């Protein structure tokens, strides 16, 4: 290996350096360092953005919160406005990795890495977050759903980078649900995960949003289930109906962590748990 390393000091420098063939962005390194060591990735130049101040800010802006791509999970968890305004994000990130991983790993790295198990994507999908993409001509925003295109793939083009994520502040009346099933509680990659925002009205479900991880090529929203459940009262009959349409929403595979059948079962059970335990 004969990589070069550059600590990036400004956005302009980053744009310029990204023009070089073989340049790869490095942030917390929790994915990248392992990939390099396993020989899965070779970089001519590593562009370290982890100290780039413009990408490390959290700010509130017109009904939204913008989080810079290089903000670490620990910073997000500790930030008071996030705990107050988008608690579902804190709830999910507390389950991500370990203290050490949360101290280094960033939200931008998690999204660009685009793993089917990316825990930060679940709350962000529920919140209809947008990815803010920077390019030399300016910036473009795309829904997170469209930003992620396949395992390890995003819509980022050559010369572009993810500058942050824009999260609309949700209704504070939503009840929150995030549950991740893995081999153990701590430091585990999800076998399957389910997140939800739910609001009840007059004994019926007024609004429900559902998203799941590790059960499709990417973390996904479960729209057919959302449509089925909206406006309905929770009955054993409804839970059965909901379980029956799960195969329309997800496409799990069998891998070293679990079988596809097990994943169908887990999503069904988590959904039942959600519906049976949600307060009116």
């Amino acid at each position: 290996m004969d990589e070069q390393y550059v600590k990036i000091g400004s956005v302009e420098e980053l744009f310029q350096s990204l023009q070089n063939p073989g340049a790869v962005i490095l942030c917390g390194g929790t994915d990248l360092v392992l990939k390099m060591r396993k020989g899965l990735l070779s970089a001519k130049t590593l562009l370290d953005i982890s100290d780039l101040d413009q990408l490390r800010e959290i700010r509130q802006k017109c009904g939204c919160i913008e989080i810079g791509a290089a903000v670490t999970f620990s910073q997000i968890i500790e930030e008071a406005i996030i705990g107050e305004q988008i608690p579902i994000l804190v709830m999910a990130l507390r389950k991500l990795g370990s203290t050490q991983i949360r101290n280094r790993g960033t939200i931008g790295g998690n999204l660009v890495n685009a793993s089917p198990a990316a825990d930060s994507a679940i709350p962000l999908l529920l919140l209809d977050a947008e990815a803010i993409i920077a390019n030399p001509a300016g910036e473009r925003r795309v829904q997170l759903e469209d930003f992620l295109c396949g395992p390890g793939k995003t819509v980022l083009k050559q010369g572009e980078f993810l500058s942050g994520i824009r999260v609309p502040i949700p209704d504070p009346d939503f009840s929150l649900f995030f549950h991740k099933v893995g081999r153990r509680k701590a430091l585990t990659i999800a076998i399957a995960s389910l997140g939800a925002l739910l609001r009840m009205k007059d004994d019926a479900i007024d609004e429900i949003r559902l998203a799941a991880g590790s059960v499709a090529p990417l973390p996904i929203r479960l729209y057919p289930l959302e449509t089925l459940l909206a406006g309905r009262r929770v009955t054993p009959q409804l839970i059965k109906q909901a379980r029956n349409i799960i195969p329309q929403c997800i496409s799990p595979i069998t891998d070293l962590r679990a079988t596809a059948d097990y994943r169908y079962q887990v999503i069904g059970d988590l959904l039942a748990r959600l519906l049976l335990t949600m307060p009116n």
Partner: protein
Amino acid sequence: MKIRFTLNGKQILVEVDAETRLLDLLREDLHHTGTKEGCGEGECGACTVLIDGRAVNSCLVLAPQVDGKELLTIEGLAQLSQSVSLSSADQGHKCGFHPIQRAFVEKGAVQCGFCTPGFIMSTYALLLKNPDPTDEQILAALEGNLCRCTGYLKILEAVRYAAQLMRGGK
């Protein structure tokens, strides 16, 4: 390339390659072998050190990334001001021990000892921020550290005791 950082209070200027891990810089180049390599993949926490007061896995950090930062390793902990000689367990020993180290020894939280530096660094990072943690907070702070010997209960006891020692209680 040359990088400059503070290691356990001392300024260091050293030549590193871009792909060198912080763990290798510490162990191989700077001969600070208290920091251990277990898995090399962020799973076991044996390589835990503090960068600017936060616990991180030194096996996942590239050496050039610590340019300009402040690092603390297990070797530096004993030199911190609260350190005392290890009273009850080892009377004759003159070298200083940090209260967390003393607590781990006195509570029997060390067996083979391979995981111990990592656990102690994670404990230190926790107690810096939260001098009086609940058991739940202790377990959350240590979730990135594995121990194959102790069964964890003694470690939990040691951390509780260390917190008490550091708050000035006996």
